[in-house]
């Protein structure tokens, strides 16, 4: 609407022309999207009226690819989905297969899995702290967080040979025992991290700017959070005490003494507090795992699913046959469908596995926590300022590789 004679117009808010909503594209390459995500925002001035998250830029068809690979081959797909917590994806995938075929995992393997998973949780939350701080202007925090995360990646590398895509699980256990001196390195990590977290918290937790940016922003109530289907720290920040490790213990989590931090306000600040508190709990779990690490085998003795040790191959014909069968065609699962789930740093990561009795998954549906949490974005950003969208997206901690698969 073009007004030609402005001086003649009556003045006052009731006579102001209606503003038109502007559509703004945030992404796909916005630095705060942590991957490739495009969000279409409908803006009324600085205020967001509606948002539509356009995902799929990192869709790689992993679910389809799973159908072409044997169960053992599929392990390497699993860690490429959520590339910031690969060990947890490895464990989630094999626990679905283990549930399907009903194989027992030895205690030492379970403890090694717990160690790797908690290391991944610390590493993932550290990265989250660094990048979310970076989005909100805490530039120095990024370098501290990256330095500390690298300690966990060093441990990944020393154990599996790879810093990120560990692929360390096998159906029925883990691929290797812990190398010599690894536990000492882990102990140094456990000793040094609390101080590092204190340093980090001294920078942020009582920082007035950090409070102003996060407190009361992106509030979601417990009922809304359940309706929206979010899990993990986002759900717990709203006051719902649900953590898979406590509610449905796996890998022997029932034997560890730890607490699940639960928030009250359901805002971005509480989500920040949840993650910092979770890192401290993870360090507690790590210490207990180091102190009580069981001895014994690290993979099941069931030769139908696990490779025989190298030393047996020169002595036993049976071992050679098992080796040949496992390497050439893998093992078969019974007909049926199972759902197995673990607690990833982002929430409940589930694998719905349908088997038709062959050596490959007939259908492998992943329930990615990032996908479910990102669904809540539309509700969270309505009525907030554009700058707060960055804080809210950061606080949801989604990983687009996990979301899009």
């Amino acid at each position: 609407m073009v007004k030609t004679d402005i001086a003649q117009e009556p003045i006052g808010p009731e006579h102001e022309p209606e503003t038109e909503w502007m559509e703004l594209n945030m992404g796909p390459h916005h630095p705060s999207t942590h991957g490739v995500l495009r969000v279409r925002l409908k803006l009324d001035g600085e205020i967001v009226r509606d948002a539509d998250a356009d995902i799929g830029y990192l869709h790689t068809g992993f679910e389809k690819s799973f159908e072409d690979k044997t169960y053992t081959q599929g392990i390497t797909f699993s860690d490429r989905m959520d590339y910031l917590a690969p060990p947890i994806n490895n464990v989630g995938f094999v626990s679905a297969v283990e549930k399907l075929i009903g194989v027992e995992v030895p205690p030492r393997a379970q403890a090694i899995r717990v160690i790797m998973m908690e290391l991944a949780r610390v590493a993932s939350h550290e990265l989250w702290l660094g990048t979310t701080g970076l989005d909100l202007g805490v530039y120095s925090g990024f370098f501290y967080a990256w330095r500390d995360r690298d300690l966990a990646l060093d441990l990944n590398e020393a154990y599996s040979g790879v810093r990120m895509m560990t692929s360390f699980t096998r159906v029925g256990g883990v691929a290797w025992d812990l190398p010599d001196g690894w536990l000492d390195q882990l102990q140094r990590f456990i000793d040094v991290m609390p101080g590092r977290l204190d340093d980090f918290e001294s920078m942020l937790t009582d920082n007035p700017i950090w409070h102003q940016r996060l407190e009361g922003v992106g509030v979601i109530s417990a009922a809304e959070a359940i309706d929206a289907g979010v899990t993990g720290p986002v759900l717990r920040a709203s006051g719902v005490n649900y953590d898979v490790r406590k509610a449905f213990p796996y890998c022997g989590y029932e034997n560890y003494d730890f607490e699940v931090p639960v928030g009250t306000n359901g805002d971005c600040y509480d989500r920040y507090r949840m993650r910092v508190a979770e890192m401290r709990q993870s360090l507690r779990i790590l210490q207990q795992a180091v102190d009580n690490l069981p001895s014994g085998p690290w993979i099941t003795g069931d030769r139908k699913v696990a490779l025989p040790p190298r030393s047996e191959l020169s002595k036993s014909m049976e071992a050679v046959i098992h080796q040949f069968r496992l390497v050439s065609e893998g093992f078969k699962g019974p007909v049926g469908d199972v759902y197995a789930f673990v607690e990833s740093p982002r929430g409940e990561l589930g694998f719905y596995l349908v088997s038709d009795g062959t050596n490959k998954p007939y259908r492998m549906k992943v329930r990615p926590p990032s996908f479910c949490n990102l669904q809540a974005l539309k509700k969270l950003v309505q009525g907030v300022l554009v700058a707060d969208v960055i804080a809210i997206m950061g606080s949801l901690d989604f990983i687009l590789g996990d979301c899009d698969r």
Partner: protein
Amino acid sequence: MNRWSSALPDDALVQRIGDRFGAGLQESSDFRGDLSVVLEPGALVEVANYLKSEEGFDYLLYATAVDWPAREPRFTVVWEVRSLANKTRIRIKTTAGMPDPHVPSLTSVWPAADWHERETWDLFGITFDGHPDLRRILMPQSWEGFPLRKDYVSFGEPVIFSDQKLEGLEPDAIRG
């Protein structure tokens, strides 16, 4: 493996659904501690409402589908829900047949089904009647075909061995 066992007596739940909805419940199974019920599509929303309001299944985990080309009806559509208070899960299944597979949407019962049903439409081509915003979510809007169907080939490059004749094969035909 007590991790997978449920806290509630599952048989009692299936019994209650059966008593209340009769033929709406087609079959039920309990495999490795996972309770599944197969429902008649017409009874789906009613049973879902009952499960949410009276049995406390407040949390939707995911929705997806499985393609069985040899079966009639061809698709099994799956929703899995959890009761956070009772720590139980139930898998709700129904079927949809070709040529135009469609099932009722459960977004009116569990709003979280929104994106999951969009994804199922996107990758399987199953229409969810009553879904507020059914459009592609992972694939581009202009995509043709439904990638997770079994007749949608992901790796279509046949290997030509030296004893096979190449004559008469167009380069594109080799690539499949």
